[in-house]
């Protein structure tokens, strides 16, 4: 596709986790072969539970962790192959917003200096120009222009997250990787930040890789969604497709665990809930990684690894029985 901005091919990130009890080394398969691409001006959502490897993907794109295998292209630049000066030369094109607005700002840097930091480091513009950009960005994220004189501890959590967004915007990037940008915020502030991100996207034509563990938030922001489990994508599809006809048992279990203020009391108890917890990413099971918790798992699932298979319109599912299983969620059955 010509409007493709980011392309991730077969990305693997493994971490060394020290010596195993029986000799040899233990390896954490944090990300174990994912492919996706983000079109210009759209948002690509990644959902999954804690430890599934979402942040690791984000940090691999930002080149903050070593990439074990695979390649990452930002337009024509293969950013997975760049080092040192050549990497710095393209850093202005992609920036990141982190989860914790408290630890992601240097407590010793005033807001203006924090926003200017990428410009200073990459040598973009002159002194005056940078200050001007910093003030413009403050205004763009809904903070007072004068707020640049304050230290991070003088801002609330939501305002700090606005600062982080302003910092990410300063070098006028095309792509912003947002790693759980609202998970640490209250719902009221979460709504402000989500709307801000959507508004900035509309105004500046930004693209997002948007990571969250909350399906409702992902649905609100994203055009395409991938569901991640233990280092792999188990299902990916355009958002409309995923939320109307999800096919993977894990996606179903995320959907049935979601809470709603409108739900009847005790709704969860009536839904099919997933038991257990994700296995360790140090020794992923040989077959389907979800088999140990999957209510539909068979011998085949435990022995043979399901590949992502296409179901039309960019909908891909990694389950041996995708399309044959009856979704346990009434809404999905109706839509299908």
């Amino acid at each position, binding site marked *: 596709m010509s409007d493709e901005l980011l392309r991730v091919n077969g990305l693997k990130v493994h971490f060394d986790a020290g010596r195993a009890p029986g000799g040899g080394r233990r390896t954490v398969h944090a990300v174990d072969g994912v492919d996706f691409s983000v079109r210009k001006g759209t948002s690509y959502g990644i959902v999954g539970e804690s430890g599934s490897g979402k942040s690791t993907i984000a940090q691999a794109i930002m*080149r903050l962790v070593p990439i074990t295998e695979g390649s990452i292209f930002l337009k024509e630049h293969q950013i997975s192959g760049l080092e040192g000066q050549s990497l710095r030369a393209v850093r202005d094109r992609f920036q990141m917003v982190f989860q914790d607005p408290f630890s992601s700002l240097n407590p010793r840097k005033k807001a203006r200096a924090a926003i200017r930091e990428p410009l200073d480091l990459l040598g973009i513009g002159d002194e005056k120009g940078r200050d001007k950009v910093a003030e413009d960005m403050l205004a763009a994220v809904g903070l007072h222009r004068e707020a640049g004189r304050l230290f991070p501890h003088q801002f609330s959590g939501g305002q700090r997250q606005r600062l982080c967004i302003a910092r990410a915007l300063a070098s006028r990037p095309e792509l912003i990787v947002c790693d759980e940008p609202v998970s640490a915020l209250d719902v009221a502030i979460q709504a402000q930040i989500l709307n801000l991100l959507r508004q900035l996207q509309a105004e500046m034509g930004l693209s997002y890789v948007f990571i969250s563990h909350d399906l409702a938030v992902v649905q609100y922001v994203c055009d395409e969604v991938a569901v991640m489990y233990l280092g792999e994508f188990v299902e990916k599809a355009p958002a409309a497709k995923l939320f109307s006809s999800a096919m993977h048992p894990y996606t179903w279990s995320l959907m049935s665990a979601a809470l709603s203020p409108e739900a009847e009391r005790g709704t969860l108890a009536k839904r099919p809930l997933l038991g257990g917890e994700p296995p360790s990413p140090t020794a992923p099971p040989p077959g389907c990684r979800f088999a140990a918790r999957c209510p539909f798992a068979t011998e085949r699932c435990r022995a043979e690894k399901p590949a992502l298979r296409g179901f039309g319109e960019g909908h891909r599912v990694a389950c041996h029985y995708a399309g044959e299983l009856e979704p346990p969620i009434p809404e999905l059955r109706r839509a299908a």
Partner: protein
Amino acid sequence: MMSSEPMQATAAPVEAAPAAKPDHPMRETLKIFLKNRSAAGGLILLGLILFATIFGPAIYGVDPYEMVWMPLSPPGDGTPLGTDYIGRDILAGILVGGRVTLIVGAVSAVMTIVIGLVVGSFAGFFGGRVDAALMKFTEFFQVLPSLLLAMVMVTIFSPSLGTIIFAIGIVGWAQIARLTRAEFMRIASLEYVKAARAAGARDGYLMFRVILPGSLPPIVVASALVTGASILFEAGLSFLGLGDPNQLSWGLIIGQNQNYLMDAWWTVTCPGIAIFLTVLAISLIGDGINDALNPRARKRG
């Protein structure tokens, strides 16, 4: 029912109250420090000690090497703090000897801190093999019995001031290195360091401009303790007769008079008190800095 009322529909500008005047975290720390009574007391005490050692000898005007009075005469009996076993004025000795004690303490503390800081920051920042190698090296120094090592070094090389400073400096840095490494590792994992790296920061910038300032507080506190310990160390060496015999210091006075402790308590007690007060002042200041840097009550963020 209120939910039908229009609630702000788009991202409304939320203005941070810029009214609050920017208060640098460091300035706030200084304020808390000065409010702390025992810390201020320590600061004043140290100031007095420094004044006495710098200007005292000139003001007092008595030669500490000269036999000025009856040997072992008690305080008040002709001299303010009495005389030693060959009739030298103890007060003059303390005033002049303080210079050597404080200089040895300070210089060796600086050396300890610099070595510790460099080793610790490289180990903490680069991790992996660099860390493993540097930490093995550090452990080696940590398990050596430090007083023994210093004694051996001073005995092998001549007991000059330089050797003593070097000996104290080389044995004490391991603790600072471990502390620095731990702080570097903690801060390096914070998201603002990742953010700076994502914004294009080089290693040097990250180490010295981003991580080091954040990790200084506990290191400053530890440095105060190290300075106190260095002074005690110098006194200990001199007391054992391993100091530079040509340089009058508090430890040397104690060491030379140790045999007369029973008959002439002042010869040993007076320089002992001087050491005690100096170390006390430094550790009060260290505690004050510690409290000022980690006030529990200070609000989150």
